[in-house]
């Protein structure tokens, strides 16, 4: 049932491969697994879907191996997890020598003849999943229904309830088999029957039925009166009566518990000790003035100290046992277990969240790091904390590294060679700095000698077009046409307010092509990700105009919202695109970076969700405040305590 099972080292050598049912090669799906899961730190859950296959994997961090099994998505095989674990254990034990002693050469030169063992394990796993045979259905003879006579199943009117109760009793007696009839336990009735019931085994079933029926009749006569009394009740309850509240009809007077004497009279309430100082507080305030909020950072520091103190005594309790464990850990050859890593990971997760990384992403990151480190042998003089921190740092740098080339100028040159403008679209929610950063990017492009056309496709916000016009004027003042060979370096293309943004964009692009502009920067209106009609409009603009670069502008102050924004933007773009491969967000512009000191977590959240690079970073409001991302500096700021 399996499509394939591969075992390969983390360095890339395939140690053993089993090609199952039919054989598309295992390399492509496994490569996809590696690239999307392991390298993007999404290693939290251990299964991955690729086209028609489901891939499950397991990492061995001690010997740096990866075990991958692939099977058809539509099958749900329950024995796969167990199979992987068993194979892992056997393979590791069988070839331990190769791994430990010879290193890479051992992997290269060793022959891993695992097929027989694997077939055996596979057979065992399949057997174990089949052990519970499906329960066989009872035959008709075995069921209870066959033991009832036809007579008792005939329903005549009036006797219906009797029949039902009788049948229940009969069933009860059948169930208990040869026991004395337990159901009619009304003693007076039962005695006679019990003695007769003692010989029940010799009685045939019909006679048992007969006896029970007689019994029942007798009881029923007695209970007749009882049954009659509930009947009048039933008759009475036939019609629904309106509910009567106790005090409902009584008037408000009864409910008024206020002391009519006290209202309005001054003697009723005792005179308090009125302290004007306490009530008014600050004696020096000016009457009528509204003061600013005072920012006290001392309180926060005190709170942190308070939180830390309770944790210290628990550390002390660790005591001797902890010390020995630490010594053992220091000397090396201790392999990491989940229990060791959990407290450290918890702390790291809280630290990341404190640095403004979105909560779910911090959780996923820590999970992935745990998976990568489980079972790894620590070197000498390394503690668990340092190993985990190191691994987390590497993971963060890995996330921030761009998966594709980030070189806008190179692409613009390419487009220039083909005599077509390079189109960049800016999208994002309200107020993140799209227009400001658009102006900064056009300044940078002009400095490098490219002419820019700004398309004002924000036809909604009041003053959007005027803002861009002011920027254009300023840029032209800074770079007048004379210094660039008589060419206007930046121009605004606008059609006022209220028009369709996609149409304006299309016209702007064709205008740029005719006039020979190198770059077109399209500014769109800010929109919330939940606003469906506006998201549709944005998706239409992007699908129709096919820009070269779609930049999502996000501010660095955003916290958990970043995840929601990016997911919904991408989803909207994917849903409304007609093409096979829809245009999604290609890059991120991180703005207002100067407003956060070292709470740089938003960068991580955004790159993790989209796996697209951060192309520009905005650090202020002047034209020169445009930077590119330095992954190491950001991670250093993030890991700083």
């Amino acid at each position, binding site marked *: 049932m399996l499509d394939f099972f591969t075992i390969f080292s983390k360095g890339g050598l395939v140690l053993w491969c089993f090609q199952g049912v039919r054989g598309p090669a295992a390399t492509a799906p496994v490569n996809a697994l590696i690239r999307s899961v392991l390298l993007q730190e999404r290693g939290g859950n251990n299964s991955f879907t690729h086209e028609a296959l489901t891939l499950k994997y397991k990492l061995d961090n001690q010997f740096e191996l990866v075990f991958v099994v692939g099977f058809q998505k539509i099958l749900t095989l329950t024995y796969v997890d167990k199979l992987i674990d068993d194979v892992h254990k056997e393979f590791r034990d069988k070839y331990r020598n190769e791994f430990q002693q010879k290193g890479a050469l051992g992997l290269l030169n060793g022959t891993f003849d695992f097929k027989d063992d694997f077939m055996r394990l596979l057979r065992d796993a399949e057997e174990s999943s089949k052990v519970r045979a499906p329960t066989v259905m009872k035959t008709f003879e075995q069921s209870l229904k066959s033991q009832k006579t036809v007579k008792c199943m005939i329903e005549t009117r009036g006797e219906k309830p009797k029949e039902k109760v009788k049948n229940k009793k009969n069933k009860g007696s059948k169930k208990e088999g040869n026991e004395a009839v337990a159901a009619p336990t009304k003693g007076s009735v039962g005695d006679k029957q019990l003695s007769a019931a003692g010989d029940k085994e010799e009685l045939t079933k019909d006679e048992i039925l007969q006896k029970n029926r007689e019994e029942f009749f007798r009881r029923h006569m007695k209970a007749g009166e009882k049954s009659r009394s509930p009947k009048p009740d039933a008759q009475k309850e036939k019609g629904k009566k309106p509910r009567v509240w106790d005090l409902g009809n009584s008037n408000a007077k009864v409910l008024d518990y206020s002391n009519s004497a006290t209202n309005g009279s001054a003697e009723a309430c005792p005179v308090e000790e009125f302290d004007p100082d306490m009530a008014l507080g600050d004696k020096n305030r000016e009457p009528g003035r509204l003061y600013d909020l005072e920012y006290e950072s001392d309180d926060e520091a005190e709170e942190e100290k308070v939180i830390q103190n309770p944790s210290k005594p628990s550390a002390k309790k660790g005591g001797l046992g902890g010390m020995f464990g630490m010594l053992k850990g220091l000397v090396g050859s201790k392999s990491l277990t989940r229990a060791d890593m959990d407290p450290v990971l918890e702390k790291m997760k809280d630290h990341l969240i404190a640095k403004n990384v979105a909560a779910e992403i911090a959780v996923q990151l820590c999970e992935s790091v745990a998976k990568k480190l489980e079972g790894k042998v620590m070197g000498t003089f390394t503690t668990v904390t340092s190993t985990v921190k190191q691994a987390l740092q590497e993971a963060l740098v890995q996330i921030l590294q761009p998966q594709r080339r980030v*070189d806008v100028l190179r692409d613009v040159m390419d487009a220039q060679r083909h005599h077509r403008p390079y189109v960049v679209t800016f999208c994002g929610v309200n107020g993140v700095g799209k227009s400001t950063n658009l102006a900064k990017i056009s300044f940078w492009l002009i400095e490098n000698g490219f002419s820019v056309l700004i398309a004002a496709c924000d036809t909604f916000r009041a003053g959007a077009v005027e803002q861009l016009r002011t920027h254009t004027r300023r840029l032209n003042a800074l770079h007048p046409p004379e210094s660039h060979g008589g060419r206007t370096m930046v121009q605004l293309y606008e059609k006022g307010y209220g028009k369709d943004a996609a149409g304006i964009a299309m016209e702007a692009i064709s205008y740029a092509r005719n006039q020979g502009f190198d770059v077109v920067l399209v500014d769109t209106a800010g929109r919330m990700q939940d606003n469906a009609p506006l998201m549709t409009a944005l998706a239409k603009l992007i699908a129709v105009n096919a820009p070269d670069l779609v930049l999502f502008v996000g501010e660095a102050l955003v916290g958990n919202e970043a995840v929601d924004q990016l997911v919904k933007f991408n989803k909207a773009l994917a849903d409304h695109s007609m093409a096979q491969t829809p245009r999604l967000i290609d890059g991120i512009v991180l703005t207002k970076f100067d407003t956060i000191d070292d709470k740089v977590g938003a960068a991580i959240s955004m790159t993790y969700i989209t796996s697209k690079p951060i192309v520009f970073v905005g*650090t202020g409001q002047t034209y020169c405040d445009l930077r590119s991302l330095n992954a190491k*500096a950001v991670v250093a700021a993030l890991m700083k305590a």
Partner: protein
Amino acid sequence: AMADGLEPDPAALRELSGPAALSVLIALIAVALTLLIWRFVQGRRSSRKAVLLLGLCDAGKTLLFARLLSGKYRDTQTSITDSSATYRPSRDKSTNVTLIDLPGHESLRLQFLERFKAAARAIVFVVDSVAFQREVKDVAEFLYQVLVDGTVLRNAPALLIACNKQDVTMAKSAKLIQQQLEKELNTLRVTRSAAPTTLDSSGGPAQLGKKGKDFDFSQLPMKVEFVECSARGSKGEEGDADLEGLEKWLVKVA
């Protein structure tokens, strides 16, 4: 009594002074000097014994690694971590180098380069000759990042650009690849230095080659060579790989 106890010591010391103290001093200096020299020599010799295999994803680095070390063909997957082993380039010389195969994936390559660049005596940059036309910009970007690295410029390890996958008919020749790379690196010099500076503004990237003139591989401080090779080998998986040029160069470098 105390004074008596103390008195002999200065006397004894005075006796020791003179030739004895001088010899002790000389001995100490000699030991220190030997230690220093030994550490220096050791450091120099052992610090740069590595030959790095760099390149884009799917260029064939891991297969090349396997072929060089064992001569056999192995199936490979995308590497997630480095692999290293000692390699003896030639049977007569007793020198050996550490061959290190680094992952080529975009998110890992720079990290691993950071780790191993100081120990590099030589760099083999593996290029996929079949997909080169499509990937020329990415290849050039990675090569640029390697070449402007401070440590690499300082140590100037020998660079070999191995044009792999020559067994396929559509493979580009080494000459063509050299020309295209020079052109691309020429453009990259301009665009990269014009890119917005990084957040901590650690200074712009170093200048590659000579200003004013078109970029040429001969302008670099290290020796650059181009070689064609095929890790898979023209006779299929059972046959040998076509690695003569590469092996000769390794012998030269070791």
